[in-house]
């Protein structure tokens, strides 16, 4: 039984791996999420990770259908609850590469608490958020990242709440790899995702992934005119304070790329139960441990 238990393979002979699923995506033509699934595919392929060693866990939303369009193992769970499923799966078998995918509503709305806790735990997960600043699947309500003043079906007079700032939140919560990509630049995006997969610890890749049907403000053009790459701007990815400063930029210029990266022990490193390897491969049951009954005398 060749159950994955090896660390990420970064070298070795090129594997001919197929990540494309036979299932064709069902997103609207032109949806930003096409670029994201292509980037995820490219990232895992570039790292030569066989599909059966990858688990993709998602919540509910247009974006959360993504696992069906890959040929890896997948778990398509509940709205907002992808993260704890991924955490449990990763802790059960930390030989697997676990990617969490979903939308801004899923991750920064209903599932925000889970996301922040996963970050502070520094579990070795790669979280790819398809942030379209709208609720797509439920046909266009405001999301936690919708712009102040933006008119949506649930805010016909305009949003009156300050949007959450996923990058700043992740920095504050203790994520150890914090990046932002743009679905309009899949090459750059797949490098960021591959970087997240290689990184030991919690990696966030928040992605501008426009909803062409319900968000007419944050379009491909909107982002194309504004995004720039941090790596071309001399940004120091080891400087948390500078990363926070960059995270505040959201105007005529919007940064993409890696904001911050730091090495910190992962949850898996610190959890005593994982010292003997993935839980899945460990002996189960307590036959022979009858001595434990003595404490009840």
């Amino acid at each position, binding site marked *: 039984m060749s159950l994955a238990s090896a660390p990420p393979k970064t070298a070795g002979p090129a594997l001919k791996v197929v990540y494309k699923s036979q299932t064709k995506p069902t997103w609207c033509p032109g949806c930003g999420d096409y670029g994201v699934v292509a980037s995820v595919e490219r990232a895992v392929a570039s790292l030569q990770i066989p599909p059966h060693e990858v688990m993709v866990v998602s919540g509910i939303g247009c974006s959360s259908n993504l696992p069906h369009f890959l*040929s890896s193992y997948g778990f398509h769970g509940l709205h907002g609850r992808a993260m704890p499923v991924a955490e449990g799966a990763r802790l059960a078998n930390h030989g697997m590469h676990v990617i969490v995918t979903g939308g801004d509503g899923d991750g920064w709305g209903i599932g925000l608490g889970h996301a922040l806790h996963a970050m502070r735990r520094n579990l070795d997960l790669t979280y790819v958020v398809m942030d379209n600043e709208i609720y797509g699947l439920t046909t266009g309500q405001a999301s936690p990242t919708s712009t102040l003043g933006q008119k949506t079906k649930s805010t016909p007079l305009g949003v009156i709440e300050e949007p959450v700032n996923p990058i700043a939140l992740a920095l504050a919560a203790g994520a150890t790899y914090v990046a932002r990509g743009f679905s309009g630049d899949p090459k750059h995006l797949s490098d960021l995702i591959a970087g997240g997969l290689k990184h030991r610890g919690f990696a966030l890749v928040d992605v501008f992934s426009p909803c062409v049907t319900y968000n007419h403000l944050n379009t491909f053009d909107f982002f194309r005119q504004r995004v720039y790459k941090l790596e071309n701007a001399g940004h120091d990815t080891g400087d948390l304070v500078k990363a926070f400063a960059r995270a505040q930029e959201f105007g005529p210029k919007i940064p993409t790329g890696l904001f911050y990266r730091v090495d910190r022990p992962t949850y898996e490193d610190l959890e005593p139960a994982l010292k003997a390897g993935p839980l899945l491969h460990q002996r189960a049951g307590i036959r022979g441990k009858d001595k434990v009954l003595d404490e009840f005398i």
Partner: protein
Amino acid sequence: MKDISLRAGGAAGDGIASVGEVFCRLFSRNGFYVFGHNGYQSVIRGGHVWFQARAGHDRVWSQGDGCDILYALDRATVEVHARALREGGVIVYDPEKFQVPSELVPAGTKAFPVPTLEFARKFSPQAILQNAAGMGACAALAGVPLATLDQVLTDQFRKKKDILEQNLGASKLGYEHAQREMGAIGRALPMKGGASKLLLSGNQAIALGAASAGLKFLAQYPMTPATSIMHWLADHAVDFDILVKQAEDELAAINMAIGASYAGVRAMTATSGGGFSLMVEALGLAGMTETPLVVVEAQRSGPSTGLPTKTEQGDLNMMLGASQGEFPRVILAPGSASAAFRATRRSFELAEEFQTPVLLATDLFLSEDLHSVDREELPLDYDPPSLFQVPEPTDGSNGYKRYLLTPSGVSPRAIPGQKGLNFVAGSDEHDESGHLISDVNAGIPMFIELRKKMMEKRMRKLQGIVQATAPPKLEGPAKAEVTLVGWGSTALAVRDAMRLLEERGIAVNYLNVEQPYPLHTEPIARMLKEAKRPVLVEQNFSGQLGRLIRAETGIDLPVKLLKYDGEPLYPWEIVGKVLEVSGRVAS
């Protein structure tokens, strides 16, 4: 039946629970069966708490009725509990702390002053030693040898050797004082001898059962009365190679357990009704993705935050209906600590065999109180079956159907990491391969048919579960004047009541429904039809099991004993009801 009960009462922070545990062990070490009941409140200091240790040569199932020795650390204890004293009972108190006015001492009982503080001061100025002196006095009154108390205290202070000698000294003074001034009370039982009984809480039995069933992953959020499951497993996590994760909330706890189970390890979560309310959506997720899952639901008095430290069986309706739509589930409700151990293991087997969630229903009374069991009732020599059902295809091709339609409804399950068996588990309706039929396919004739088939596939498992599990048993004589009907911890007080009734020559039996769902409809209907006078006994307001039985069998149980005041059932309440329905006393 012959039994003796020691009760200690005082304020939270007085160390009542540890006094109570010592009381229990004084007897279990001498081969007695013991029951330890902890009556406490939702405060950390202050308030009124009490603990009752009841012991007998035969099994004692509950805290019983009344007490024989009342160790009162404050006057409030005398005011609240003196009336529970049985004939020949004694109140142990320290006159330096308070006086016991004679009107508070029931006829036929005595107040017995013991200078516990004075004895304590001989060894240390710390007031805490007063309990050692008090316990010494109680042990002498109960007729327990001083050597047993020494042994129990020595074990208790294993890690605090510096204060052990002082404790032994103070307890000896208390013991000798009571022996000299009063001697053993009339109800004191001869020491039994033989092997020590094991003394454990229902939650410890559940935790042990889970570990022995192969549990590798527990995710939990603290909530009384489920919390001690996490405590005990966390304490043993290293020895047992179990990962214990305190989650950020119950939504996370259950979803983590589902993730771990999907990835191929035995996983569990535990909570009380409030936390279970938050888990409801994910319960359906386990049902839909056909992921094995064990959820312990330790009930307490509701609704809402309710009485966090008091017992109830008010959540059956919720457990039956939790989560939208329909999917197979199992509810087990063990009626003793050893049954809880067995039911926990069975929960894992059923969850795995039928790939669906299993709810293990318990309540504060069963979960937190202390029960005696014989060592043989907790067999740990068990090898959990392998989880791998599907061999990896050698050619790496993926023709695997995770949700294959089968006559049993159960499909071969691959474990992520197996080569060539990749699939997506989905909360949306899906086809045999796991592909969505909720989006572009929904409503298309072929997929309408398929949806129906997938529903039927999942629901078919219920028949298999009924066949794979044992129908409930009638406890007690086959022919009885009254047949009591209940579930879960109700069995405890019922068994004590049945013995009291037997002593009066009244034959009563008990239909112990330890699997409320899926219900074994036919055998239950048969037993109820044969019953002369069935009486429903439940610890809730509306008789939730009764409603379920009526729905499933068409049989109504109009005569009910329902209790929802937060306190456990007392045997005398059941005895009274039986006397009433059998026409022996007027109702």
